[in-house]
C-alpha cells in the first residue's frame, strides 16, 4: 500500500469501513469448530496431566507408607525379645510367613511401659483386588492375629501376602543366607504396586534384613 492510498482511501475501502454487517453464520460456525478443536486438544492435555498428578501422588504416598512401616518394624524387631508365628512357635528357616508375632518388653519405646505382643500380618487389600495390606495389631494379654480387633493398616497395595522370612546359614530366603557369625536376621520383603500384583511398571520393592538384636548367635 503506497503513501497515496494511505492518505486517500479508495471509495471501495471507505464503503467497507462504513459497512455494519457482522460475520455470516458459516464464518461463525467455522470459527467455533476451529476453537473447539484447539480447546479440545488443550483439555485432553489437562486431563491427562491431572491423571498423572493423581497417579504420582498415590505412588508417592504408598512408597512413604512402605518406608514408614519398614522403619517401625526395624525399631520393634531390634527391641523384640522374641519373634515367632502367631501361635508362639519358632519360625521355620526359609519359610515365608504372612504374619509374625513379636514380644516387646516394657522398656521398648512403642509399648507404653507394659509388656506387649505385637503382630504384623497381611490381609487382602480393601483397595485393589489381588493386592494385600500390612496390618499391625497389639495386645498386652495374648498373641493377637489379623482377625483380632483394633488392627491398624500400615501399608496397602502390597503385592505379596508373605513378607516375612527367617534365613539360616543353610536355608536361604530369596537367595539371602544368614552369615555364620551373625545374629538372626528377619528378611522382610515389602513390594508395592498401585497397579496390582501383575503389573511391572511402578513397582517399588523394599527389601531389608533386620537384625534381631536380642537373638542368640548360632
Amino acid at each position: 500500500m503506497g503513501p497515496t492510498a494511505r492518505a486517500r482511501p479508495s471509495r471501495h475501502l471507505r464503503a467497507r469501513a462504513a459497512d455494519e454487517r457482522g460475520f455470516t453464520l458459516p464464518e461463525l460456525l467455522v470459527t467455533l469448530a476451529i476453537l473447539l478443536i484447539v480447546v479440545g486438544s488443550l483439555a485432553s492435555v489437562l486431563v491427562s496431566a491431572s491423571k498423572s498428578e493423581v497417579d504420582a501422588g498415590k505412588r508417592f504416598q504408598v512408597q512413604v507408607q512402605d518406608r514408614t512401616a519398614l522403619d517401625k518394624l526395624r525399631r520393634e524387631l531390634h527391641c523384640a525379645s522374641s519373634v515367632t508365628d502367631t501361635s508362639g512357635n519358632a519360625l521355620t528357616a526359609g519359610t515365608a510367613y504372612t504374619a509374625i508375632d513379636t514380644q516387646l518388653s516394657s522398656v521398648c519405646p512403642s509399648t507404653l511401659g507394659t509388656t506387649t505382643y505385637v503382630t504384623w500380618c497381611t490381609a487382602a487389600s480393601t483397595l485393589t483386588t489381588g493386592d494385600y495390606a500390612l496390618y499391625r495389631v497389639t495386645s498386652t494379654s495374648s498373641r493377637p492375629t489379623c482377625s483380632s480387633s483394633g488392627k491398624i493398616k500400615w501399608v496397602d497395595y502390597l503385592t505379596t501376602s508373605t513378607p516375612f522370612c527367617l534365613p539360616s546359614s543353610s536355608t536361604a530366603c530369596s537367595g539371602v543366607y544368614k552369615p555364620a557369625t551373625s545374629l538372626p536376621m528377619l528378611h522382610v520383603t515389602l513390594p508395592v504396586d498401585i497397579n496390582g500384583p501383575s503389573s511391572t511398571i511402578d513397582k517399588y520393592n523394599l527389601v531389608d534384613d533386620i537384625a534381631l538384636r536380642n537373638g542368640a548367635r548360632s
Partner: protein
Amino acid sequence: MTALRRLRLRREEGFTLVELLIAMIVLTIGILALVAAYTSGYVALNRATRVSSAEVLADSQMERFRALTYSSIQLNTTCGALCNVDSTYTSDAVYNATARVSGCSSSTESTCLPIQTKTGPDGRSYRMETFIEYSCPVSTDTLTISPLSCGTGEPSPVKTVTVVVTASAASTGLGTNTPVSVREQSAFTSLTGQ
C-alpha cells in the same frame, strides 16, 4: 476526534514481517524458559528418587554389620576379580590401604565385598562400595597397625564401616552432572561382642 486520530483509525497497515518475527522470537524465548523450568523439575525429581533408593540400600548394608560380631566385620581382599578395587574406590577419602580390615574368606556375603552391584527398590542398579578401616576414636591419636594401637593409655582402635552407594550419572538421565551418591558411616567397637 482530531484529524490525526481519524486518520490512524482509517489506516489498514498491519504488522510488518520483521515486527512479527521479533514478536515470535520474544515469545519463543519466554516459552523456552518455561520448558527449562519443567526440565529442571524433572531432573530434581529423578535425583530425589535415586537418592532415596540409594539410602535404602545403604541402610540395609549397615544393618547387616549391626548383626555381626566385631571379629567378623572384615573385608575379603583376596577373592580375585570379585574383590579387585578400582581407582574410584581407592581414591575415596576414607580409603587407607594400610588400615583396611581384611580376613573374610566368603565371596558371597554382602558384608565382605568391597564393591558390588545391587538392585534398588526402584528396580534400577546401584554400585555399592564398602570400606572397613581401623581408626582411633580420639581424633588426635595416631593409629599404628602392628601392634594395633592408638597409643599408650588411649582407647583401643575401632572399626569404621563406610558404605557408599552410587547411581552412575549416565543411568540417572542427568547428563554430565555428578553421579548421585549416598554415604553412611558407623563405628564398631569390640565391646559389642567378639
